[in-house]
């Protein structure tokens, strides 16, 4: 499916660097939500950054140093299996919209799923992004026809009716 280009060129006109004070505030908020430390070397020379970047260490959490703090997100922890079960009903509802079905556990943060023919990596990506926004944890989908799936696939997600 080619539906992953869901936006308009008008978005670009909004793509300006924002007030650095706003950016720093957002970065601080991200820091408070962070659940583990990320450290990477600088990706850009400072003179190519669109705004002066903050310290890579904010509130005790290290971030990737990039062009703008608003583009930086802390890495989320993998969704524990209990969390996937708690949201099983929601995930089962979300899955068909992205061509996924038969959701099974594949280890922490990993779901093994059947993927409808014609669906693409962009469909898996969108499902993961939506699931992560719901669970606030990292979610990764492995198609059941990937080589690793046979090894990873476990029990189906079971709703615990807590979500």
């Amino acid at each position: 499916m080619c539906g992953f280009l869901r936006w308009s060129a008008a978005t670009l006109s909004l793509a300006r660097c924002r007030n650095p004070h706003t950016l720093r505030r957002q970065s601080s908020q991200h820091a408070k939500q962070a659940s583990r430390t990320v450290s990477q070397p600088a990706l850009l020379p400072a003179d190519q950054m669109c705004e002066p970047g903050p310290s890579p260490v904010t509130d005790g959490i290290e971030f990737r140093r990039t062009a703008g703090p608003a583009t930086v997100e802390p890495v989320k922890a993998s969704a524990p299996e209990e969390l996937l079960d708690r949201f099983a009903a929601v995930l089962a509802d979300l899955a068909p919209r992205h061509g996924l079905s038969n959701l099974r556990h594949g280890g922490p943060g990993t779901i093994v799923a059947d993927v409808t023919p014609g669906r693409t990596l962009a469909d898996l990506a969108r499902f993961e992004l939506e699931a992560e926004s719901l669970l606030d944890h990292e979610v990764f989908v492995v198609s059941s026809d990937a080589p690793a799936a046979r090894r990873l696939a476990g029990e189906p997600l079971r709703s615990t009716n807590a979500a």
Partner: protein
Amino acid sequence: MTTSRAGLAELEQALEAVEAIIRLRDGGKVTFDNSEDRRWALAFLWVNVGSALKQFCRLRGIEQGSSPFPGPIRMRDRLCYRPPSTVSTRILWDTCLYDADPLAALLRHLKAVISQ
């Protein structure tokens, strides 16, 4: 400060990579199926696309949550940070088949807008 042409080089990089994907894909499904080298070359090119677009977003101050390219950037992260054995060759092929052309068209359009 962000200039009106910020990210143009990254768009061009992404477009070059997508055009390479289209060229390799047009070599046909049989070649794709028979050549592990070709499959990983295509995966690498998708990583290249996502990296360029990620940097494009950074340079234009676009937040990740509102990125215009969440699909390609997340695809890049998947391919970068996960074991190769988690990549389905069927889905990789379908991605080249269905997503490369519309993305190339979009990037050409964006490039024209930014170049003005």
